[in-house]
């Protein structure tokens, strides 16, 4: 039964794009995103040319991927040294983080899951301050309004309706904002994901659904997560879905920008399934050797988004060894700075950390409890 639908590949040997092919067939006519992709799902040469990114901009995409990977590594080191309670690497998913974030306007809100440290850095959130979340100092160390970057959502898929509601609001306010919500392959199994997709279709919300299909939900492989297809599901909600190569940063950039612009024009939501791979453990608490083969991981390292893009940049004469070395050194420096700053950051005052942000209009009994709490601290 798993194969009754040729359009619907149920296992994904590497990146199989036969599905995209069909979707593209069906929607190319009016889908401004699908149009950029050749039937085999790769970004067409023409589209690549029309990205409007000059050499500096193309180099900057590379630079950002290198920098966030280095920061990711630093965070993992900090966790191993006991300076962070937990770390969830995004190693291998840098093309999605950088490509999608840069394709948006800085005012377009992003609704992340919990693995989007790289996106946050691309939005200018201070990485050391962000890491205080994993250091147990704060549940949300940045002001979402300042960076148009929502708090991390740890309960899987629960941020998806938030993004849809936000986008409904943009439409009601008749602005030309778009919202982007990102989530994993596992998140697509949750009821909230479905309800939000359906609302988005009904209300034509200007929202881009960006699935980072990295093939794993902790230890559960995609093949046990669904017998269907993620990109394919969009049709059931009345809007297009497209599977793309999530390790090709230009494909991610092009698809996200086209989907966001389409949303701005009032043409409704769009689902992008960016196929990538979780090269690291689920989090620092996880032990992938219990459930996956090193060979699978190795196979994917050949598709590493940074290596691939670097090769293309060099071939196109946009990057040379010298500028590459400079970027690597810059990334090293940023990694060191993150560590030094994080370790310097003070522990907030407990009363404020525990009671300070619960209510906007704190009730009397709540304020009395806080006073007693703070008084009790002074005693000790």
């Amino acid at each position: 039964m798993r194969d009754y639908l040729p359009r619907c590949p149920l296992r994904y040997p590497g990146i199989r794009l036969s599905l995209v092919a069909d979707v593209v067939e069906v929607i190319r006519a009016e889908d401004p995103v699908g149009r950029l992709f050749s039937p085999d799902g790769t970004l067409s040469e023409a589209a690549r040319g029309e990205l409007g990114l000059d050499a500096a901009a193309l180099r900057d995409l590379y630079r950002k991927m290198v920098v966030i990977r280095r920061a990711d590594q630093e965070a993992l080191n900090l966790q191993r040294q006991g300076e962070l309670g937990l770390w969830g690497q995004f190693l291998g998913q840098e093309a999605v983080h950088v490509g999608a974030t840069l394709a948006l306007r800085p005012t377009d809100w992003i609704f992340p899951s919990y693995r989007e440290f790289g996106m946050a850095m691309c939005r200018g959130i201070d990485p050391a301050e962000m890491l205080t979340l994993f250091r147990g100092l704060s549940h949300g160390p940045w002001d979402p309004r300042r960076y148009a970057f929502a708090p991390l959502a740890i309960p899987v898929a629960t941020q998806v309706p938030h993004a849809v509601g936000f986008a409904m609001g943009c439409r009601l306010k008749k602005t030309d904002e778009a919202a982007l919500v990102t989530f994993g392959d596992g998140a697509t199994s949750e009821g909230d994901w479905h309800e939000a997709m359906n609302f988005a279709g009904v209300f034509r919300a200007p929202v881009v659904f960006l699935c980072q299909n990295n093939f794993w939900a902790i230890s559960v492989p995609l093949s046990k997560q669904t017998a269907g297809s993620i990109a394919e599901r969009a049709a059931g909600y009345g809007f297009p879905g497209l599977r793309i190569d999530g390790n090709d940063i230009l494909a991610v950039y092009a698809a996200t920008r086209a989907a966001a612009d389409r949303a701005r024009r009032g043409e409704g939501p769009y689902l992008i399934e960016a196929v990538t791979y979780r090269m690291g453990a689920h989090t620092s608490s996880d032990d992938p050797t219990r459930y996956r083969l090193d060979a699978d991981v190795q196979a994917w390292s050949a598709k590493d988004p940074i290596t691939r893009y670097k090769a293309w940049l060099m071939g196109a004469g946009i990057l040379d060894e010298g500028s590459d070395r400079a970027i690597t050194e810059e990334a090293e420096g940023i990694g060191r700075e993150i560590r030094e700053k994080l370790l310097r950051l003070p522990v907030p005052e407990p009363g404020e950390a525990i009671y300070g942000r619960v209510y906007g209009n704190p009730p009397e009994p709540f304020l009395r409890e806080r006073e007693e709490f703070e008084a009790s601290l002074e005693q000790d």
Partner: protein
Amino acid sequence: MEATMAKAINLALRDSLAADSNALIFGEDVGALGGVFRITDGLQKEFGDERVFDTPLAESAIIGVAIGLALRGFRPIPEIQFDGFIYPAFEQIVSHVAKYRNRSGISLPITIRVPFGGAIGAVEHHSESPEAYFAHTAGLKVVTPATPSDAYGLLRASIADDDPVVFFEPKARYYVKDTIDQAATVPLGKACVRQEGTAVTVIAYGPTVQTAIQAAREASKADTSLEVIDLRSLSPLDMDTIMASVNKTHRAVVVHEAPVFCGFGAEVAARVSHDAFDLLEAPVQRVGGLNVPYPPSRFEKLYLPDVDRILEAVDHVLAYG
């Protein structure tokens, strides 16, 4: 003016929409139909279908998009059609509505309207009293009116409040008329004395306030003077008003429709027993629903607290010792 509680809530919604262009009403059947209880009757016509709109049948998304709309600067007033259908939204309410400000610094001025309680002869899942689940959830405010004028005032105050409020409407009382004063403001977090008395404090809220008042009338025939307190806000809980009364009466009975075990009455009884330890002449009595799932409607009268069971508890605290 004279109005039913249903009409008072309708007015509060209308006045809130008129007062704040960011206020939005949405939910299942709230538009053309005006809600299954007609609470939103006429509002879509008056304010248009961008401010009062029907949603697909999905409670978790109704609350989830309310959060997104609030982040975008709106003041959402989602309706959950019945008490028994708020559970699919529990995750969004407990993990996000209640906690979002604590992790973002952004207030979510969301008022979730929920018709609740029994005594309407309904089928299963339409007579629940889930207030304790939400009162136990830090970050929420939980409010429930007992009269039309409180329904108006408390709903206006809840919508105006920057924090999320779960607003429980005693549906069995929707069509009871009373005079309402749209000018009078009713603050959140303040209980009130519905009926002055000296012998026993009867603490009630929402649908059971009227039952308590009837019990007080009955009792007065036997020259027993009951003081009836209407909590109005469950979270925060106004212990000052309760203690002022218990200081007089030295006896307390707490009443609600939800099952007694771990119900909101447990908090009230625990607090009164603690704060009035030296005053109490008798143990605090709890009168509430039986510790079973809400029964078929033919038996609901036996499940729900009534005047007799309140008076029994009153006799008990009076006869004690």
